[in-house]
């Protein structure tokens, strides 16, 4: 006849069994999660200078965003250190002038930087498209669909906000996508 001690041991074992099953399941699940956790990812490494101080991008571009009736679905993608792409949907509109702040640009470096813009709409809607900086307009596409490559020089530590402006003499009844490439390079003064 089993004694009291053995009975307690038996009951204790029965209570422990579901927990042991859980532990067994965890022994299979935890390694899988850990292996997935250890799977390497790709990310741009933060550059370190000789003193070990982290240096960020020399020119920082940030999307201003905000709601606008004509300019919607804005995206700004970084291709590499010196190249970005900006795209926006220009919605149907009446004949008028429209503008919106699109990108904030900050030159964090100690040298002047040259920003070159190139963009066009997929279809020609006879719209004049320009960039506006400090009330100065830089034409990027005219009403005939011809494109220009405006250049803007940004001084060290300077922060600017770039506006996109469209002007059309007749109403546009459909939406169109506008894509613009932005290139950053050191500014070399031409003699």
């Amino acid at each position, binding site marked *: 006849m089993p004694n009291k001690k053995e009975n307690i041991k038996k009951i204790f074992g029965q209570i422990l069994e579901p927990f042991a099953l859980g532990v067994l399941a965890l022994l299979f699940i935890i390694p899988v999660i850990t292996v997935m956790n250890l*799977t390497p990812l*790709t990310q741009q*490494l933060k550059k370190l200078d000789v003193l070990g101080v982290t240096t960020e991008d020399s020119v920082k571009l940030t999307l201003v965003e905000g709601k606008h009736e004509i300019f919607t679905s804005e995206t700004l993608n970084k291709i590499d250190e010196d190249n970005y792409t900006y795209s926006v949907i220009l919605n149907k509109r009446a004949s008028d002038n429209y503008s919106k702040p699109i990108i904030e640009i900050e030159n964090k470096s100690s040298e002047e930087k040259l920003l070159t813009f190139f963009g066009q709409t997929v279809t020609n809607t006879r719209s004049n498209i320009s960039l506006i900086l400090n009330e100065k307009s830089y034409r990027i596409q005219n009403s005939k669909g011809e494109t220009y490559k405006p250049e803007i020089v940004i001084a060290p530590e300077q922060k600017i906000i770039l506006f996109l402006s469209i002007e059309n003499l007749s109403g546009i009844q459909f939406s169109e996508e506008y894509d613009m490439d932005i290139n950053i390079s050191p500014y070399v003064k031409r003699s």
Partner: protein
Amino acid sequence: MSKLLKRALKISLTPAILMIVGKFLGIIITSLIYDLEFFVENNIQGLLSIQILYPNPETTLFVNSISNISMLTLLAIPTLYFIIKTSIYQTSLQNPKTVIKMTKFNVLKWITKKDTSFLQIFIWCTFLVISSSVVVIQSIQSLSYTWTGVLAGTISLLCIWGTIRTFEIETDKIYPKENNYY
């Protein structure tokens, strides 16, 4: 608590640890040998909390593939060893030629005691199949080279076949095939 559960818990510990160690060592050793720059980030994204980051996709793909192979190797070698050992042990009981061959290759101790159970083979094989599935999925997602996925799939199929064969050998002991007696 049943003896089977206790044994299952005890056996599962080693392959579980080896799975993690294989992956981790694969990453560290590859990074050290090829002098690859990487850093570790701690961002909680769902179940994942640690991110090992490499500067470009080619390096990430290479390191992940090598670490996957290292994890598979650490699991596949013992599993195949257990399967082969059990098969030889069972064959040697019925066929004296096997004993002679074993003596020739100086691996007689494989058949002198039976220290590998079907449960052990089954658990090791399950871990191998799980890790192979992870590698195959990563290959499909282009996170690992295609050949690593193919290799993982082949090894796991081979081990499944070996495990089933071991199971047949074990059941033959309980229910012997009739044709062995006629």
